[in-house]
């Protein structure tokens, strides 16, 4: 690729999802992240009970992310052909796992603040 600037990457993502959906998704991700930081600062500590449920949800997030990408791209696990594929595959699973963990923790903290 000739010029891989931030603007180019944003432009490409806008085309993948549509401008509206992309920015809604960015906003949602930002809101969840901010919510997470907010409850951490508010509570001054991590609630390990809430973290446990968040951790338990991680495999679900990992599998959902992988399933989504495979489904959207007409591909299957057997298509992984080299080391970089495994790295990308694990990256997608990790992103799904971390994403859902943050989401679950934040929702619990906002819904049931005191435990």
């Amino acid at each position, binding site marked *: 690729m000739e010029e891989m600037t931030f603007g*180019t990457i944003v*432009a490409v993502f806008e085309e993948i999802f549509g401008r509206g959906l992309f920015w809604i998704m960015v906003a949602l991700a930002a809101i969840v992240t901010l919510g997470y930081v*907010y409850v951490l*600062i508010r509570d001054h500590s991590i609630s390990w009970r809430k973290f446990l449920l968040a951790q338990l949800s991680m495999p679900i997030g990992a599998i959902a992310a992988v399933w989504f*990408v495979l489904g959207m*791209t007409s*591909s299957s696990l057997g*298509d992984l*052909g080299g080391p*970089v594929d495994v790295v990308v595959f694990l990256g997608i699973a990790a992103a799904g796992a971390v994403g859902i963990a943050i989401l679950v923790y934040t929702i619990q903290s906002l819904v049931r603040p005191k435990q």
Partner: protein
Amino acid sequence: MTKLTATRRQFFGLAAGGAAATALAAPGDARAQTATKARIVIIGAGAGGTALANRLVARLDGAEITLIDPRVDHLYQPGLSLVAAGLKPADYVVSKTTDWLPDGVTLIAEAAAEIDPEAKTVTTSGGQNVAYDFLVVAPGLVLDHDAIEGFSLDMVGQNGIGALYAGPEYAAKTWQAAQAFSETGGMGLFTRPETEMKCAGAPLKHTFLIEDITRSAGMRSKAEFHYAAPQGALFGVPIVAEKVRMLFAERGIGTSMQHRLTGIDAGARRATFAGPDGTTEMDYDYIHIIPPQRAPEVIRQSGLSWADKWTDQGWVECDKTSLRHLRYDTIWALGDVAGVPKGKTAASVKWQVPVVEDGLIAAIEGREPTETYNGYTSCPMITRVGRAMLIEFDYNNDLTPSFPGLIAPLEELWISWLMKEVALKATYNAMLRGRA
């Protein structure tokens, strides 16, 4: 120790402020616009013409930009291979030409009928006479289906005949014929023309995909695959040709090199080839036809073509690094029509557009241009559903990987397939808007 405390409102207020500041600081085209009254005419509103128009509008203030193109639909041509393999519907590649054009340009929805490079005018099919100071010729190319004896486009989709280059509906019909073959087996014959052509990887991709689909359908043992091409090698870049040769051997795909398809007998399902030993015939149950490709008649009639190269094809005579016409310094060639040794792909267009843009603006500003085109072309060579090789190269046949050390160009990878599936059309669209 100061305790970090914030109310919910303060916290989100701060966060929103930060986000707004980031958005305001987002980088745009920082270059100042050039004021000019130049009349710029672009023949063709395909990938090249549209991307260039969008970029020129951003760079020039006061220029009169006119595009001449009769085509109502804009085609995302890299998607045709996917349509012809049943992976995408025909409308995946279709949008409207006007969807992509910026405000402030004029589209004349007629064909260019005559170019007079001496008088600097273009006459349209409707008789309009358009004068220009600078001209960019980007009309694409024409598929010479009549050159294949016994073949016409209305045959596509029946009797085992495919021709995916002809457009979205023909790509979808090609899939009908190819799918029937993948379910019944027989002899599959895959061809390519002798002339320069759009995306020289596409004939190979179609072969690989239909072979893979036949294998998945459990019919591989009942099907034979044969690739016949007029060239001496499977691909123009030697190192890639060798890789494809190995993959063909692995997948049991036979080859007949130096064989040019001259005609078919659709009833008898027999193809005729001109080969080194004269005329040969091959029977088929499915054949994929890619006709010879040439510059549009208007280019060839207007004296813009090379006189001593590609004389049967008529590509525009231009410098291969600046794309500027060698005899008329107010004319540039862009995209398929350019008479350069490589680069009839959308990826090439992406790299050619900034060069033509810079050449044009440099001419307006009276300075020397700084951008050059090195022949860059990219071909996500699909080798099966789910895997591809991300092959990029230049005029020297050097591999020019975008992600060296990360994505190996000659390895069949899932990530390369993901890029084709997810990012390619998006990048293409961003290019059309002048943003990539």
